Structure formats: structure tokens, C-alpha cells
């Protein structure tokens, strides 16, 4: 059975791929750029003329190019933040699960404690206290989202540890670090892939939440959250400037969630067979 036999994976993956390609190629094909203001063409509704298919914003900037740029930023933040949470979560979970015993209990108790914290408020606090830059957004979101990953990986490692091939490796004199890297890690890939796919929409949510509040990506740069925020201010006269970025953000989040669900089903099937 191949990944593409699952309709959920095929459809949501296809939509995401299309959006990503548009976001990469769109600004390059369009005759407009994201910065140039045009005060003769403020808040123009979507039109085919002049390729302004998403209309313009209150400063006359082309909304198609800005939206595509926003998608780029949103996807970039999501992928990098997920990578950060992946590294922290896998390392933490694998060590806790593999070492086991008291170390494991203490490490997991710490995770439980962190679970109880209102993380989003800490992220906002971070954005208030320090200068708002891209790097900080990545790190802050990644640092928030590693808890689930750590739990999952730890559970999986705990059961892998008892398997014969780990005993065999240990008996032939392979060191702990090497067992973790060569024997445990490859067996974690399936479950890690599933949870990264589910972490990405969470990272997108946090980033767009921050940008919506004006605490994330700053003008003239933009992201889907910032575009929704701008759209809210113009919604009475120019509903498209709200509905287009809001719809795209919803679509992207929905597709990632469906993709994650589909992948989970796919890997579960393989496990039970």
C-alpha cells in the first residue's frame, strides 16, 4: 500500500503543494510587488485586469502578491518552528525513554509541569520584552510545541528498548549513544513524521495569532495572520481583504490536520499488520 492510496493524504497533500507552489512562483510571475503603494487604486475589489486577482489593500498595494508572501512567511515559520520542536522533543523523549527509571520519571514530571503553563502568554511576554524578530518567533514557537513530541517519542522508545534487537546490540558491545542513533532513532521515524505534520498547524496558529495581535511579523513584511488583521479593519467596505487571507489560512490549517490524520491512519495500519 502506498501513501497515495489514501484519499485524505492525496487531496490535502495536493492542495498544500499547490498553495506552496503558488506562493513561491506567484510573486515572481505577477507584475506587482508587495511594497509599491498606488493611491489611485486603494481598496480595489478583485479584478482580472492588471492581474490583481485578489484586489488591493488600503494603501493600494497588490493583495495577491502580499498574500502569497504572507503564505511564504507562514509556511517558513511553521516549518522552522516544527524543526526546532522536533529536535528538542525527539532528543528529550528518546533520552527519557531509553534511560528509564528515576531519570525518566523526573523528566516526565517536568514535562507535566510545563503542560500546565499557559504557554501562549509566555510567548506574548517574550515578544513584548524582546525586540520582535523572526528568529525569536521561530525559537519561541518551537520551544512551546515540543512537549507532545517528547511524550510520544518517550512512549515509543520505552517499548523499543525492550525489543530483542536492542538487547542484541547491547550484547555485542554497542554503546548507548550509538544504540540510540542507529537502532532506536530509525524506528521512531514513522511516528515522528505523523506528529511533525500535526505540529505544523499548531506552529502556524501561534505565529498567525501573534501577527494578528500585532506582536509577530511587522510591516511591511506580512503573514497570513497580519493580513487577516488588516482585513478586519477594512471588512465593511472591502470584505475580500478579510475573506481571502482568512479562507487561505483556514484551508492550510485544515489540510495539515487532515494530512496528519491520514498519515496516522496509514502508519497505524502498518503497525497492526
Amino acid at each position, binding site marked *: 500500500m502506498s501513501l497515495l492510496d489514501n484519499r485524505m493524504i492525496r487531496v490535502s497533500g495536493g492542495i498544500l503543494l499547490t498553495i506552496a507552489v503558488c506562493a513561491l512562483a506567484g510573486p515572481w510571475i505577477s507584475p506587482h510587488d508587495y511594497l509599491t503603494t498606488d493611491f489611485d487604486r486603494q481598496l480595489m475589489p478583485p479584478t482580472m485586469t492588471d492581474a490583481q486577482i485578489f484586489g488591493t489593500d488600503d494603501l493600494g498595494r497588490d493583495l495577491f502578491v502580499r498574500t502569497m508572501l504572507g503564505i511564504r512567511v507562514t509556511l517558513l515559520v511553521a516549518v522552522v518552528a516544527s524543526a526546532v520542536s522536533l529536535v528538542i522533543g525527539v532528543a528529550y523523549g528518546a533520552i527519557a525513554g531509553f534511560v528509564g527509571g528515576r531519570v525518566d520519571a523526573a523528566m516526565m514530571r517536568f514535562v507535566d509541569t510545563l503542560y500546565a503553563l499557559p504557554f501562549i502568554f509566555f510567548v506574548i511576554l517574550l515578544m513584548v520584552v524582546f525586540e520582535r524578530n523572526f528568529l525569536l518567533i521561530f525559537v519561541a514557537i518551537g520551544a512551546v510545541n515540543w512537549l507532545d513530541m517528547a511524550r510520544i517519542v518517550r512512549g515509543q522508545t520505552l517499548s523499543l528498548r525492550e525489543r530483542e534487537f536492542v538487547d542484541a546490540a547491547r550484547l555485542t558491545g554497542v554503546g548507548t549513544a550509538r544504540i540510540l542513533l542507529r537502532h532506536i532513532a530509525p524506528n521512531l521515524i514513522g511516528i515522528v513524521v505523523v506528529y511533525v505534520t500535526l505540529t505544523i498547524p499548531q506552529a502556524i496558529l501561534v505565529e498567525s495569532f501573534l501577527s494578528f495581535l500585532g506582536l509577530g511579523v511587522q510591516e511591511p513584511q506580512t503573514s497570513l495572520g497580519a493580513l487577516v488583521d488588516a482585513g*478586519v479593519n477594512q471588512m465593511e467596505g472591502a470584505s475580500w481583504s478579510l475573506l481571502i487571507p482568512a479562507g487561505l489560512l483556514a484551508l492550510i490549517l485544515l489540510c495539515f490536520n487532515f494530512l496528519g490524520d491520514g498519515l496516522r491512519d496509514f502508519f497505524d495500519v502498518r503497525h497492526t499488520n
Partner: protein
Amino acid sequence: MLRYTLLRVLGAIPTLLLVIVLAFLLVHAAPGGPFDDERVLPADVEANIEIAYHLDEALPKQLLRYLGGLVRGDLGPSYRYRDRTVSDLIGAAFPLSLTLGAMAMALAIVVGVSAGTVAALQQGSYLDRTVMAFSMTGISVPVFVVAPVLVLFFAVKLQWLPAGWSSSTGASRMVLPVITLALPQIAYIARLTRASMIDVLGRDFVRTARAQGLGTLTIIRLHALKPAMLPVLSYMGPAIAAILTGSVVVEEIFGIPGVGQHFIRGALNRDYTLVLGIVVFYAALIVLLNLIVDVLYGAIDPRVRYR
């Protein structure tokens, strides 16, 4: 039960302390002083301000002073609203936020549990798939997308409900904010209820009840609902946190003068003590409510007490 409750209470204290210390240190790690971005002040005035706000003291001493104040319910002065304390500001705004949050939570539990139960009873049907599709959408789409779209349709286009928060609109101004806050929680609770209800309905005691000739509704009411509610109960902690987070957005969008709006204003104005105070307040609230959920869980399901 007493032992279990005591252990839970003791377990909550380090969490709370960690939050407070972490948030405090974060705010005090901020580069520059809180009054830097205004007009340049003479050195002696600045020194006086620092003394007035105890900023001249060593960090550990400031932290102890802050913790001491917390015990008395004093969150310190606001840096921006010069004549008001943070406790005043939160105290004045909280009843409104609490009303909104409690209404949203009640709505979410009633609608979510009903929808999940109906979906479970008709598993695989058209209705079930509709509920699940709606639920996936509700989980995926963030509050700050749902809120403006609802406003656009129901307030701007159809003009059924008010978009803002003026006193002339009466209770109808609560409708959109409460629905917006409740929607994602309805989605989660429906999903959880459906899964655990399907599980419970397949158990032996339900089959026995059915064999005795009890109707579906009676079985659900007397036998299935309580065990099926356990996963929903343990979701209450995250749900409370999500509603608090959501209320920040909802209050901003609808212009509701609650705690969340203070938080956003404080964040944009760099009112460090206000933001810190709200983080500490919300964290304490979340820890406390989680504690209540834990204790309730122990009361309903005795098994967890001996784990």
C-alpha cells in the same frame, strides 16, 4: 480521597511558583528600563522613579518583594496607568471576562456532548459524518478567523446582531463573542464524546442493559454518560486554557473591556507590570481550575486515586 486531594494541592504549588519566577525573570531581563522610550528624563528624576518602583534593588530582593505582594493579592503598580494598581485593573475587568468564559464553556459542554452522543449513536451515518466534518473545521480554524467572519455575516451583512460592545445593545452583544469562544471547544468536546461514547456503548454492561429491555435514552442517561464523560472531564483543563487564550482575541475584536483587552494594550504599550500581573493571574487561574478538575476526576473515578 483526602490524601489524593492533598497530594494534588501540593503538586500544584511548584508549578505556580515556576510560572511566577519564570515570568518575573523574563520581564526583568528586558533590555533597557520600562521608562526608556519616553522623553529623556534628568538623571535625578530617573533615579527617583527607580527608587519609587524599587528598580534600584537587587533582582532577588525585587523577586521576594513581588512574591510577598502576591501573597497579599498585590500585583504592584501599573507602569502606564500611573494612578492604578495592576490588581485594581484586573479586578475591575475580570467579572466580564469570567461571565463570557463561563457562558462559552457551558455552551460548549451542552452542545459538544449532545452532538458527540448523537454522532456516536448513528456512527457512520450522514449525520455522523457531518458532525465530524464540522468538528475538524472547528478545531482547525482559529478564533481570530472565525470571529471576524461571523461579524461580517451576522453583524455587517445581515445586521442581526451587534458587532461591537455598546451598552445600548443589551444582552444581544454577548451572542457573537460567546459563540466564537465556544466553537472550537464544541468541536473538541464533540470529537471526544463521540469516541468515548462509541467505546462505552460497546461494553458488556451496556449490552446487559439493552438485553434487559432498556431504551437507548435510558441507557445513555443511567449507564453510558458517566463513564463516557471521563475523557471530556480531563479535557476541561486544556479547554479552560484555550478559552482564556481565545478571550484575548475575542475581547480585542469585539472591543470588550475585559482582562484580555488589558493584556493586549499592555503588551503593545510595554506596560511590563500589567502584562506580568495578567500572566501570573491567568497562570494561577489555570493551575487552580486544573486542580479542581483533577480532584473532581478523583471523586468520580476512584481508580486514579491509587495510581
